């Protein structure tokens, strides 16, 4: 489904880069990218989202080189990927309800569908009572869960979660993992980027370890340290 073929990305005046990445992710897989901060996990995600262009190599999604997409086709492509960003990237002047509803509006869902699905998604992440709040009125954990609700509302083919447990307590982290596992059971491919050892060990799924921009380990059912 997703193939990184000899992908390298380097930045002028920056140390963060990835080198010669060979990676294949199948439909329905749950893959964890691990590694220290600055290892290149987020760069891979940005390349997959066509937010960045690789210096060399190709990234394909269902056989299509995502960096050859025309500008007008990129939104449709991104709609197939739900993303929980490390810094949440919530729309500050929209309420909790509107942040999730917006994701449905932009793919043309009817008002009736939005009225039915948004409360369900907010209930799933425990924010059903916060519908009228604005993001700045939420705690870090609540913002994280709102980002998850927005990412899953359209049942994307792939869900990318970049450090989704970074600001959560252990119980909150477990809650987020349960949600991700549940979504994965429904057939969605999950890419989780984290450097939280407990999370990786608890999941016991495919682990791709990245250090200094290179894949140094790819285990089918791995743990943080092996």
């Amino acid at each position: 489904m997703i193939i990184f073929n000899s992908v390298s990305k380097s930045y002028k005046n920056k140390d963060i880069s990835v080198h010669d990445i060979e990676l294949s992710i199948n439909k329905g897989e749950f893959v964890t990218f691990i590694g220290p901060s600055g290892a290149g996990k987020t760069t891979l995600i940005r390349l997959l989202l066509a937010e960045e262009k690789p210096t060399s190599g190709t990234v394909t999604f269902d056989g299509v080189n995502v960096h050859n997409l025309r500008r007008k086709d990129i939104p449709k492509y991104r709609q197939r990927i739900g993303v929980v960003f490390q810094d949440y990237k919530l729309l500050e002047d929209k309420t909790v309800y509107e942040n999730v509803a917006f994701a449905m509006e932009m793919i043309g869902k009817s008002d009736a569908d939005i009225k039915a699905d948004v409360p369900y998604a907010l209930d799933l992440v425990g924010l059903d009572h916060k519908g009228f709040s604005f993001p700045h009125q939420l705690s870090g954990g609540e913002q994280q869960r709102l980002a998850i609700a927005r990412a899953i509302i359209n049942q994307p083919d792939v869900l990318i979660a970049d450090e989704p447990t970074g600001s959560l307590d252990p119980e909150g982290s477990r809650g987020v993992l349960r949600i991700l596992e549940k979504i994965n059971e429904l057939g969605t491919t999950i890419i989780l980027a984290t450097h939280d050892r407990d999370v990786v060990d608890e999941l016991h799924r495919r682990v791709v370890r990245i250090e200094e921009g290179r894949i140094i380990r790819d285990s089918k059912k791995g743990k943080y340290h092996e």
Partner: protein
Amino acid sequence: MSLRLDIQRIIKEGLIKFWRNKLISFSTTLVMTIALLMLSSLMFLNAGLSVAMSQLEDRVDVNIYFFPDVPESEILTLQDRIGTIPEVRDVQYISREEAFVQFQERHQNDELINRSLEELGDNPLGASLNVRAFRSSQYESVVNAIESEPAVSNSDFVERINYYDNKTAIDRLNEFNNVVRAVTVGATIFFVIIALLVILSTMRIAIFASKKEIRIKRLVGAEHRYTRGPFVVMGAFYGFLAAIFTMVTLYFATGWVADFTRTFFGGMDFKTYFTQNIFYIFIIVAAVGVILGVISSYLAIRRYLRT
């Protein structure tokens, strides 16, 4: 998705965005109001100058003086023919008697002339036709058309056409008219560009405040119409609201300058002009405001939509 639902959502989001960003909305609308006031002032100035110029032009005319023995029927036939020249606004026949009365009235205090008339004992004046064109620049072609009439080219009928006496004054008036119009058009273009730049800069600042939001929308897969649309709606709303503020300001401002403008523009005062054309002015100001708002927001957001 239905286009109606799409547009409905974009408009709704634009209005909500306007309302939730009150400070930015207020300041942007205020700047747009100032720009619209600048443009509408030009509209008033244009109207004032047009009135003043047409009043000057009204004072210009051409008289065809006939010999005293020319039959009235010939002159009246010529009057009808001149009346059919497209550039001619009106042709007035002044009979010998009327000319004599007017002459006497004009010179009633002139002893010498009164005594001369008494000695003559008869009306020495011929009839005349007073011709007025729509514009002062049309007199040359009007006179050419008149001169091609057989009754005029017949030297036994026409004593004199005073166009050639007034030609220098008419040419000067035409030149002045052309200069005034050129300056007005130049000033209008200049201030329209200034207004557009001011509005564009203001809109860029307003949209700069939302650049994070634009980026997020793009990352979560929003198509351009969903990202750009609400800002364009907001721009249109700024323009419409600015047009209303402009009309309110103009209502008071034209009242304050009414007396001054009445004196300056020869009878036309801005207050009367405003109240008589209020609907027309509002349509123009609102259309300009909305169009400038839409164009400037469209241009301002373009840079954030590039991949």
